[in-house]
């Protein structure tokens, strides 16, 4: 699906992702953090990727493959270097008002990957392994 670059669309995407998770009967907390990671990726795409230009779209793919939730979020912006994002836990960054979105995603998901898209934009891939009791398999 593709969404216009409005923050209001984040909740709709979260709602649909929540539907995808329903068969897994996840603990409420696990579900909350997955949807939070999705929120952060979409907010990142809308704000930093597309600079809130409503003419630009955010493209979202959601799927469950072999009990892995796979989310792909792509913007139409000019891209960024994820390695250039400062560590929010470093003492000099701890009191900054921004720069925690990627940290959120990495904290709550099993895999987070960034890929510049040919022709412009950045793609973020998020993966979380789902089990019926919501716990990660050993």
């Amino acid at each position, binding site marked *: 699906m593709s969404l216009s670059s409005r*923050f*209001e669309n*984040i909740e709709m995407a979260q709602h649909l992702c929540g539907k995808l998770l329903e068969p897994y009967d996840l603990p409420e*907390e696990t579900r*909350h953090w997955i949807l*939070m990671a999705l*929120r*952060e990726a979409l*907010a990142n795409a809308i*704000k930093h990727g597309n600079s809130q230009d409503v003419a630009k779209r955010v493209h979202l793919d959601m799927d469950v493959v072999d009990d892995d939730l796979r989310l792909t979020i792509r913007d139409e912006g000019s891209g960024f270097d994820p390695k250039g994002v400062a560590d*929010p*836990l470093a003492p000099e960054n*701890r*009191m*900054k*008002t*921004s*720069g*925690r*979105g990627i*940290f*959120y995603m990495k*904290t709550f998901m099993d895999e987070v990957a960034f890929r510049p898209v040919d022709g412009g934009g950045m793609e973020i891939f998020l993966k979380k392994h789902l089990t019926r009791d919501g716990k990660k398999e050993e």
Partner: protein
Amino acid sequence: MKTTVREGPGGVQILDLKGKITIGSGDVQLRETINKLVEGGKKNILINMKEVTTIDSSGIGELVGCYTSVTNKGGKLKLLHLPPKISDVLTVTQLITVFDVYEDEAEAVASFGS
């Protein structure tokens, strides 16, 4: 997000927040409410988070910004009734040590006088 401001003993401003503090919905509102209090000379602020359901990284950023602006004006900003998920977020971002957090309102209000 809904915000209600009431005045406690000693002039402590108590902000009762309800709902989400997320990007585009509540984050800027929080900043504006705090700024208005500080500009009005209210320097001791207690934020009651009991009915906050969600806070994203943008909301955390605003909370940090509010803390800094109040502190820079010589005031104090403290937190009351942190829901578990928000406490978790403040813990993983290592901000839990920055904020004074209370579970009892009377105790929190009294702490501004100490």
